[in-house]
């Protein structure tokens, strides 16, 4: 059964949230999801761009009161 793991990268500067996501994706199974919380304004566009480029799946990007919530599904 697919699982979801959360990374709290609030306070980390670019490209920290992306690097934390990539490191986490190495450790989970195909179909699992990673939820990244990031206060870095660039992450809301940078992470989806990276996800599309390397062919994982974007689940969603939502703006919270103090951060962006970006959910990615491992596809390969």
């Amino acid at each position, binding site marked *: 059964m697919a699982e979801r793991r959360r990374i709290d990268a609030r306070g980390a*500067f670019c*490209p*920290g949230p992306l*690097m934390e996501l*990539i490191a986490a994706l*190495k450790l989970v199974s195909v179909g699992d999801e990673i939820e990244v919380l990031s206060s870095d304004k660039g992450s809301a566009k940078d992470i989806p761009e990276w996800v599309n480029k*390397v062919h994982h799946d974007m689940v969603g990007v939502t703006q919270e009161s103090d951060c962006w919530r970006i959910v990615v599904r491992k596809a390969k």
Partner: protein
Amino acid sequence: MAASPLYILLCSGEHEKLQMAAMMASVAAVSERPVEVFVSMNAILAFAKDVDPGARYQGGAFSRLLKERHAPDALTLFQQGKDLGDLKMWACSMALDVQGWDIDRLQDGLFDGALGLTKFLSDSETGQFVTL
């Protein structure tokens, strides 16, 4: 279609330029783009082993901000690019000779070896070239 390789010629010892080189190299590498970095001149001094973290990076106003705000460490970013992507780093053989250093004077785990500029320039004809 495979991404065009990125070749970065890193000469400056300024913290701001080291940081940008590290950001470009690591992000490109984890984006499935091969990256090679050639480190020469003052830049090589920042990669010396056993340097006090406060003294490793020298720069201007933005360097102070990077330190105060705990931005990702440039050498750590290069290491992440190597660990998570296809990133090779080369120490300029001339810079090592002038400095009187062997490759083992540089930070462990980052460099793939020493290289001459001629070979790096020849290899870089296949990709995009950036100088910092």
